[in-house]
């Protein structure tokens, strides 16, 4: 697969402060990549450099093979973007705003009419399509922003906190829209603070902190590389201290916590087979009613990496 986003040695400095430090990242066509990191990590600055909002101090960034620094018009031709919560011209309606942007992109009138209806329907803004945007809430503007980014069926979609400003229902709806895009010929590169969101939508993640890339890998590979898994088990029998200690003695068990007299949480190292053996042993002694994996593996990894990079 070809790399549709190629970032090489991208650096952005503000005086003595380095916001993005020699970032190199390649994103394959049709992949969905989550761009994660704490506040101030350099995610938004990177996205702004990719979308012609900020210039790079050094390095290169190619979108579909075109250098965004040297030829932003060419590089952004097939790129849809939503950066932070953009403001629209308040005197325009969603229909007029989409028409303006679509015409700047060269869409013909028939396609504009057809796609305007489709994308406004998709982001559930059809009822407000002829109202002036000046009176819209932040969440409504975010929906229209997503609509403009999808309007011309981009080959690359760059999103900076796409669910920011949305209510919980809106967040779910936007995630569903993004998940539906998997059927399309599109590459999604999105920053997010919400690890669950990245895990639900993306197939790989790039994590950065202090302007540096910490890891870029598929979520599956990251899970495999995790040191421990955590399961919470509910039993019929009560958990005694002796039993807890005997389980702690099992080599794969890294930690055990008694949550209540018939509930325990175990951190263990190993695969599904290891988990099965562990559960069978506990079931034979305490009779297991239910169990579930707890904790977000991505969250564990994220927190671990952020801690290490401090």
């Amino acid at each position: 697969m070809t790399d549709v986003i190629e970032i090489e040695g991208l650096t952005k400095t503000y005086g003595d402060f380095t916001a993005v430090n020699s970032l190199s990242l390649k994103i394959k066509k049709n992949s969905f990549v989550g761009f994660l990191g704490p506040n101030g990590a350099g995610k938004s600055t990177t996205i702004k450099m990719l979308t012609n909002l900020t210039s790079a101090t050094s390095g290169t960034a190619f979108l579909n093979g075109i250098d965004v620094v040297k030829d932003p018009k060419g590089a952004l031709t097939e790129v849809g973007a939503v950066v932070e919560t953009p403001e629209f011209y308040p005197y325009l309606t969603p229909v007029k705003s989409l028409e303006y942007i679509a015409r700047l992109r060269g869409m013909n009138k028939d396609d504009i009419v057809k796609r305007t209806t489709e994308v406004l329907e998709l982001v559930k803004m059809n009822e407000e399509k002829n109202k002036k945007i000046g009176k819209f809430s932040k969440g409504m503007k975010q929906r229209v922003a997503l609509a403009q980014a999808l309007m011309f069926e981009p080959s690359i979609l760059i999103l900076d906190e796409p669910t920011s400003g949305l209510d919980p229902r809106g967040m779910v709806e936007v995630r569903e829209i993004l998940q539906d895009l998997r059927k399309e010929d599109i590459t999604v590169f999105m920053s997010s603070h919400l690890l669950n969101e990245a895990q639900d939508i993306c197939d790989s993640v790039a994590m950065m902190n202090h302007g540096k890339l910490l890891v870029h890998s598929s979520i599956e590979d990251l899970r495999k590389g995790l040191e421990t898994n955590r399961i919470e088990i509910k039993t019929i029998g009560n958990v005694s201290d002796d039993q807890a200690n005997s389980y702690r003695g099992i080599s794969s068990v890294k930690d055990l916590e008694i949550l209540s007299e018939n509930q325990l949480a175990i951190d263990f190292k190993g695969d599904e087979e290891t988990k099965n053996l562990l559960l069978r042993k506990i079931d034979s002694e305490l009779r297991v009613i239910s169990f579930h994996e707890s904790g977000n593996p991505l969250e564990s990894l994220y927190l671990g990496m952020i801690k290490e990079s401090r």
Partner: protein
Amino acid sequence: MTVRQTVPSDMEQIGLVARYEIEKSLQSRAFIGIMGLMMAVIALMTLIRPLLGISFSDDPITFVQDYLNWIEILVLIGAVAFASGALSSEFEKRTGLLMFPQPVKRTTYLAGKFLSSIIILAGALGMYYVIVCLLSLMITGGIPAAILLSYGFALLYATAVCAVAFLLSSILKTSTASIVATVLIFLMVMNIIEQLLIMSSIDPAFLISNVAGAISYSLQSPYPSTYTGVDFRGQPSTVFIPTEAGSVLVMIGYIAVSMVIAAIMFKRREL
């Protein structure tokens, strides 16, 4: 992927930006305000004289010049309304977050916005000239032969003032700062410098406020030239009249320099 199209040329995009900017301006309160102000100036100029018992001049040139004395202030108000916030508002109001990631060069936005300001002001000034000409025709029975030349100078002056307003808008953070700076420069700084130069007997021909005089002088035939008279203290005093060619060059110079700097600043500015 059926709707991807070839992105229009820079020139086509300039036209599109200008079209939507004009649409925006025509819907704005500022446009209604400017038109109202122009009508008010014309109404007051036309109604107050008869009420005070002062008769109108029979000479179409003198009659029209009375009305054209207001052009400079009307152009300044128009430039403040349509040009001062044109660039800074993209950053201040964060509309740039929507527009700059589009495949459109920043200089294209700049050119489209500038073009729209000029078109709006040209329209408003044109309406002012038409009404003044109609009044001149009704009251004096004629219109000055060089009225189109005067309109040309007014348009060039409006373009130069807009260019300076764009320059300030590309540098300053907020629309309010751009508006205040534009007004201060044209109402105070330029006038103070002009007065100081005249007092020192230096020709202020390079000042845009001075060459704006061509809007009114161009109606006269022959075109007047610099002369030395006597001031109120009985001292010899030079009245500097900008030449037609000099006025054109100075205004074009202001436009070129201001727009080049505005383009560089707007292109480099970050959101």
